[in-house]
């Protein structure tokens, strides 16, 4: 069953890291997309990875989730090495993700989408399915229950039997998050969850992300361009530029880091008033 225990919100960062990325590097031929990036994500934290377009953020995520094999470096989830695992094994190990461009299963209903997200926790086999054993019925019921709980959690119960891609845009984003959560992850990676959302939808999303952490106890790591969202939501921020980590720290530290302003706005603007304004919006 899905974990729905309510835990009190954390105040401050926990000291233990759930995810430890060390000296992670990815080279595509001569191009170094990610260059020796180290990042430790504290348990039950909300952290962000930011950086200008092409900074290597998505490549970074793709390595953590096993889609790309890193050239060098190590990724440990709760002490367990993930490098060398297939994406589905990484998911089973406890990292779920959403995609920058929504990737819902377009011929399935919302419920079925979430049931697929539950796949790696279901133990029924081919033979169970053909013979309709008790285990089959149990796992089907479990998947359905997971879908119900998750749809409730993100507030999409009314769309249960609607084709996923017919949902309004913001709800599709939420559904993707629900699908990822159905695998009861320890850590969820959100790749630009607010992309294309209007301010009201973004506020909804912010509340949802907080609830994922507070109510489900899932650690959150997101890539985001919406600076207001990043600055108000994140407890810790890592900044990438040209594949290299140029800054990290608490939101106000990152906001005032000249290196970050330079990366976003160029050398000249970094010193001026304009830069401060832009970075703080």
């Amino acid at each position, binding site marked *: 069953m899905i974990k729905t225990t309510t835990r009190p919100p954390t105040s401050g960062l926990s000291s233990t890291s759930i995810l430890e990325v060390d000296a992670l590097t990815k080279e595509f031929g001569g191009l170094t997309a990610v260059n020796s990036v180290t990042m430790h994500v504290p348990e039950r934290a909300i952290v962000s990875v930011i950086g200008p377009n092409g900074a290597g953020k*998505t490549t970074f995520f*793709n390595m953590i*989730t*096993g*889609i*790309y*094999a890193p050239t060098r470096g190590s990724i440990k989830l709760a002490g367990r090495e993930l490098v*060398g*695992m*297939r*994406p*589905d*094994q990484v*998911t*089973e190990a406890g990292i*779920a*993700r959403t*995609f*920058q*461009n*929504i*990737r*819902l*299963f*377009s*011929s*399935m209903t919302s419920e*079925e989408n979430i*049931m*697929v*997200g539950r*796949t*790696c*926790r*279901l133990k*029924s086999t*081919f033979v*169970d*399915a*053909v013979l*309709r054993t008790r285990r*089959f019925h149990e796992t*089907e019921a479990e*998947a359905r229950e997971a879908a119900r709980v998750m749809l409730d959690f993100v507030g999409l119960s009314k769309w249960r039997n609607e*084709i996923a*891609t*017919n949902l*309004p*845009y*913001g709800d599709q984003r939420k559904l993707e998050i629900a*699908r*990822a959560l159905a*695998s009861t992850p320890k850590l969820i990676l959100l*790749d*630009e969850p607010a*992309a*294309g959302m*209007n*301010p009201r939808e973004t506020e909804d999303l912010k509340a949802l992300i907080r609830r994922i952490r507070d109510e489900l106890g899932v650690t959150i790591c997101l890539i985001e*361009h919406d600076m207001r969202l990043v600055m108000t939501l994140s407890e810790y921020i890592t900044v990438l530029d040209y594949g290299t980590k140029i800054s990290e720290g608490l939101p106000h530290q990152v906001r005032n880091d000249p290196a970050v302003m330079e990366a976003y706005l160029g050398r000249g603007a970094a010193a001026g008033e304009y830069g401060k304004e832009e970075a703080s919006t």
Partner: protein
Amino acid sequence: MTVANANPPKPAVRRPLVKPDRTALLVAFFVVTSVLLLISHAPDVMRNLGPFGDVLRNKVVEALIVSLFLANVLFAYLWKAANWAKLLVGAGSLLVVLPWAGRTDTSLLDLSIQIMIFAALALGLNIVVGLAGLLDLGYVAFFAVGAYTWSIFASPRFGEVLKYYGSNPGTTGSGTLAIGLVLTAVTAGSMIFIRSLHGRIAPTRASNLSFLIAGFGLLSGIILVGRSILVLFAGSAEAVANGINPGFFWLFLALSIMTAALVGVLIGLPVLKLKGDYLAIITLGLGEVIRVLANNLSLYTAGSQGITPIGSASVPWFNGLAGALGFRPDQFYLLFLYVLVLAVIALILLVNVRLDKSRIGRAWVAIRDDEIAAQAMGVPLMQTKLIAFATGASFAGVMGMIFAAKQTFISPESFNLLQSITVLSMVVLGGMGSFSGVILGAAVVTLLNLRILPGLGEASANVSWIPQEVNPANFNRFIFGSILVAMMLLRPEGLLPNKRVARELHHEDDQEDESGDGNASGLEAGGDVYSAGFATTKEDDKTGGDR
């Protein structure tokens, strides 16, 4: 969104349709077509009907009557009617009227068996292509594997093989049998061990290499064991001069399933890393490889000469039953195969439906919809695709065996590329992913190829005003092709579309509307564009490709 679609979308497919009850119509249709079928397949009766009998004897008319009769089953499935009527029509058509009409015209039974064999093939390919979205152009290879599995043993070939090994024993004997057994056990054990190890630690180059070496060891062990057994049993070549005991038929039904599934896995392992066109081309090639193997392994397959005669099961009790029902002894066998095929296809359909509504079925559709997302959601790609391949292959395998037993002759030419294409056209025509659809597709294509088009040719050959050059008999493939093209243009989702596929096609229509709308700009750019209802199903390389 277009103006017309501005409200929250409620696709038309989901509107509750109030279907009229058609019980009476169904029963009436059943009675009429049954009577027509029975008359048109009873020469004695037709002779007494004068001109009406002549009309019924016309090949086209006869083909149409058969088609209409088979439509009974379709209507019983589609129409809203009382359950007793559906059961009566379905069971009555397939279990009573059809065999009964086949009593006077065995070609009808032959045709029905052919349709069902193709329906099973279409159902198997449907799992691979329709559900899992893996385009396989070499599907007939698995059919061939099933057919040869039985044919080699149930024909004089087996005696020939034993004789060959009897006269060429080499160094093989009981000693090599022992060595082979040990080798097989050890290598299989180590492969299982490495597999379990990979479950716990990430695979390294050394562990992968040792797995491969163990695999080769296993293969040589199996070959050694097989060869030794053949040599040791060479003495009994005379005893199996006409093939093994027909009692083994039932064992081989299971064996052909397993062999075909195994070949499915072996072919799938190297090729399923590929996608789309690449997969299609390599499966096409491997399908041909199986056919060429059948052609060249002439000791076992008799090469292009083909294997004949192929034995079959002997079921005395069934013969007794058929005799009591008034069938002639030469029809017993065909009737038996008819009932067997009917049972097998019912079983296949059951397996299909159950798999579809399970974790595995959802995983297949997820892979078809979006492979990367499916894997990121924890669907093991390779394993899931292999299950699809092996399941599809096993259906083909069992039907291949029944096909061989029915034809009593097979040669590599029975398994050429055209067969794969034909089965694929059944799946596409019927509706990818829809079980009822692909069965209908199989029936339509088989009827077209075996009855309607030849009947059309035969009927028009005697019509004086049709010149020989444009006689439809010479244009069978052309007409068939035109029908396919027309279908794809008019109804791309197939005759009886799968709900998902239909929804997807509708969805894509919506999307086209949207992109013509101007509003859709900024779709991919992100930013703060308010974009309700937008979705992109396009592949995006940014999110990663293959590993």
